């Protein structure tokens, strides 16, 4: 499972607006890369480009050296899974049925075992026969993630996976993401919470106005100068008693 994702010179133009330009990114198995940046910086667009959702105006994205456009839809679905920001499901499917849809590109003897494992991991096994629409948003997010896990891909692209989670659920979610990475998978996650990125990401990529302005280890990239510039807000980075970095807006 030695996956690598590589994007070179990604350029996305939509309705005449330049959304991304010249973005390079490399992700290896064992990495959890956080994509950061203010709203409108192009984070979700980048995730869509990495997923192969649309044709690029320039550049190329490849998985294991093969450009996405050369993959068949099924092979691509076996290589990468995508957790979108929000999902509306149009019919009252049960939790188990939704997680089972993650097996779409496989449909083999492992299906049931993988579905069970995914539901256990996201702690939704007890919701198995509930209908999705009756769940809380936090539960829905975990079910969607279980579906993504059921797809059993070496590469996972997560778009703001923690947006609707409380602080406890958020910590548990990122612990799972780290465990996936430790298993040898690669994860790219769009995150809003800088402290979460600092704590869990193996690498961060900061987007600003459609361009990549920083790419490296969280501690070395997330500096007061860079963050203050990107977010138009004075931001300070302090160190707690136990030696962890904490990012805070400067308040008067």
């Amino acid at each position: 499972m030695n996956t690598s994702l590589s994007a070179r010179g990604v350029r996305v133009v939509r309705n005449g607006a330049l959304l991304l330009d010249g973005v390079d990114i490399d992700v290896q198995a064992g990495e959890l890369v956080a994509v950061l940046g203010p709203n409108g910086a192009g984070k979700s667009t980048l995730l869509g480009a990495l997923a192969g959702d649309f044709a690029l105006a320039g550049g190329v994205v490849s998985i294991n050296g093969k450009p996405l456009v050369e993959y068949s839809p099924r092979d691509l679905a076996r290589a990468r899974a995508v957790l979108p920001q929000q999902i509306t499901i149009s019919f009252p499917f049960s939790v188990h049925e939704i997680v089972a849809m993650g097996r779409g590109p496989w449909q083999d003897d492992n299906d049931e075992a993988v579905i069970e494992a995914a539901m256990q991991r996201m702690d939704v096994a007890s919701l198995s026969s509930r209908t999705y629409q009756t769940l809380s948003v936090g539960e829905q997010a975990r079910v969607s993630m279980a579906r993504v896990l059921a797809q059993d891909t070496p590469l996972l692209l997560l778009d703001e996976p923690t947006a609707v989670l409380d602080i406890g659920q958020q910590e548990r979610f990122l612990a799972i993401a780290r465990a996936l990475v430790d298993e040898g998978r690669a994860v790219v996650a769009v995150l809003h919470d800088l402290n979460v990125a600092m704590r869990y990401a193996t690498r961060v990529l900061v987007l600003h106005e459609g361009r990549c302005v920083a790419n490296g280890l969280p501690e070395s990239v997330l500096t007061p100068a860079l963050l203050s510039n990107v977010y138009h807000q004075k931001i300070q980075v302090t160190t707690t008693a136990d030696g962890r970095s904490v990012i805070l807006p400067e308040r008067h």
Partner: protein
Amino acid sequence: MNTARRPSISAVGLFLAVLFAMTALLSLATGAFRIPLGDLFRIIGDGPNRDTVDAIAHDVFWQVRLPRVVLAVVVGASLAVAGVIMQGIFRNPLAEPATVGVSAGAAVGAVIAIIVGLNQLPLGVQVAAFLGGTLSTALVYVLSRTDGKTEVVTLILTGIAINAFAGAVIGFAVFVADDDEIRSVTFWSLGTLGLATWKSVGVVIPLAVLGMLACARFSRVLDMLSLGDRSAAHLGIRVERVRMQSIAVVGLLASSAVAATGMIAFVGLLVPHIMRLVLGPRHRHLLWTSGVLGASVTLLADLAARTVLSPAELPLGVVTALIGAPFFLLLLRSTRRSQGGWA
């Protein structure tokens, strides 16, 4: 309904089979000329070419009753299955051939054929209806596509426009038609099984079978489409291709049904809705069970159309709409909450 508690598929299948057998027998026996059940089985045992019962009963059964029942079964099943597929690809339980304008397109084809005198030709109206339905399917599809994608809202709105246009054409046809043609136009645009012959049945069956065989392979894909186009694509579905294929299948099923019987509303809307309530939304069993229930419901509605004002006959579309519309409103109220929003 927090938990999806659903009956087993074998229990549902058995119930539907019994319901279907009973309605079919009842439909075969009942009508202006009653055939007692005992005679009915003997006539069936005799086959079409031997007669040991009664010459009139024999002819009524083989030349009038049976083709009518077969047509009801095929058309009812086609409309219901077309409804399931359409609701699946448009991710909306309110979609059906009528909503998107396929039925209206077929109706326009038939009405034009009547006005210009094509009804003098054998099957002229049916062929025109089929062409109209298929053409409007293609039209809806082309008009509602932008940037290689079909947006659901655009599609439904296009359907509304086509329905309005079709209504105007039919209204105009009624305006210019003579009395005889008006009778034919209205009767036909309201839907009826009264024109069933072995010839019309013979035209519909191959098209219906073709459409239903084709739809069997969509069941799992339709499930995944309910996650939305983007997530379905992430699971390896060629969303646009699937949508195009299934629209073609819907066009085939719906326009061949409308071509044979005229517009029969609500079967394609109501039947999938009921089956989804009973079995849940997975398409694997939803498709065929809706087909069986659609056949039974159409048989029952036709039975009512033939007997309520006997010997006069009500248009079938009037019966299905009279029963279907209030029933559907009730269903809407009681299920909307349990199914979540229908955005």
